[in-house]
């Protein structure tokens, strides 16, 4: 692993117009950039071929090479972020931006599995039965109250988990092993249950 100083030095040399430094950069991070573009498209549910991935990869490289790599000089190694992670984050960010600009014509479609129990409970004629509707409303109120009793930190954790940040990703974010993420979810679930039962 190169040190932050070595990484910065490489970027400095690129900014000075050293072609060898740029070639080294491409050799070190080109594959990562390509992979990040490809994977981002895949995770965003965009089906596309090699040509499309290359289109974005090319424009991303041009984006970074412009003006003797001036954008690369923004790297400071802040927060102990490695150059590789920074490049990966830029690549994802750039790809999302490309997709966003495309939004004028684009669309997003997502699919989600529904099991029968959930389906019955959440979709089938929920408003036809006023009593059931009332019970649901009450339940919702209870949940809302219970959430208020959680700390802001606990709510933030739940929010990230429920928004789909994966357990392995959360584990990295919180610097804990993956299994403690699962037990934390279970604990919070239990805590909410207790608060509701206590009334």
């Amino acid at each position, binding site marked *: 692993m190169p040190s932050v100083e070595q990484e910065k030095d490489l970027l400095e040399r690129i900014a000075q117009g050293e*072609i060898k430094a*740029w070639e080294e950069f*491409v050799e070190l991070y*080109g594959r*990562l950039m390509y*992979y*990040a573009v490809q*994977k981002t498209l895949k995770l965003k549910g965009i089906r596309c071929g090699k040509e499309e991935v290359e*289109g*974005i*990869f*090319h*424009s991303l*490289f*041009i*984006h970074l*090479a*412009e003006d003797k790599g001036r954008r690369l000089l923004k790297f400071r*190694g*802040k*927060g102990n972020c490695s150059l590789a*992670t*920074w490049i*990966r*984050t*830029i690549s*994802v960010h750039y790809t*999302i931006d*490309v*997709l966003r600009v495309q939004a*004028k*014509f*684009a*669309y*997003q*479609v*997502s*699919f*989600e599995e*529904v099991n029968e129990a*959930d*389906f019955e409970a959440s979709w089938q*004629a929920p408003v036809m039965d006023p009593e059931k509707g009332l019970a649901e409303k009450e*339940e*919702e109120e209870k*949940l*809302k109250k219970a*959430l208020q009793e959680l700390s*802001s930190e606990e709510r*933030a*954790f*739940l929010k*990230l988990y*429920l*928004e789909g*940040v*994966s357990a392995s990703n959360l584990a*990295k*974010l919180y*610097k804990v092993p993956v299994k403690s993420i699962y037990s934390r979810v279970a604990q919070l679930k239990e805590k909410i249950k207790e608060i509701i039962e206590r009334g």
Partner: protein
Amino acid sequence: MELWERKLKEILEEGKPNQPCPDLEELGGVIDGNLEKEQRERIIAHLADCAKCRELVMLAGEIEEEGEPLALNKELEWAKALFKPSFFQRIWALLQRILGRGQDEDFIPQLSLALAVRGKSALLSKPVASYKKDLGDYQAELEVEQINQNRYQVIVFVYDNEDRRLVSGIRASLSNKRGELESLVVEQGRAVFESVEEGEYLVRFSEKGVFLGGVLIKLKGEGKW
């Protein structure tokens, strides 16, 4: 996702981030798990309230540095050549000739834009999303195509799981929270919901009144993602 989780998610609405978005290095630091406690907590609190940064961290966090080995020699050679002044100058001169422009300092960003648009427009040629759903004896495939800015077509294919034969007689219905909108019988393995607006829908499969499975589809149109 369990029902209680879905309810909680609904209740835990998006807050308003009270701090400006962290820069990409700080987000990278949190992905690497290298931030000091205080900084980390600040960024995690921001992520809970900011969908844009959360998405970035979710995606970048899923991408391992050691991806599949990619045979990219041609691509990498291309990228290396990019830095040689002659590369830009050649394209520049060519484009200037085509467009009849004079020397223009702003031209390189425009060139990058042109190539970026090339990347984007190539993506636009396949506006189809699909999903496979196992229905026990059958396999359903849903394909969503965009017809215009906010209308979609949802095509349902149903095959026999064993011999891949196209199936007829399965009922596919489309409903939203207000109730059922349309119900079709799959003929020769295919049924089409012709014009569906953006929104959240449930496609429900049944055979002789027996529920086989359901898929939730979310269609979001222009400018909302």
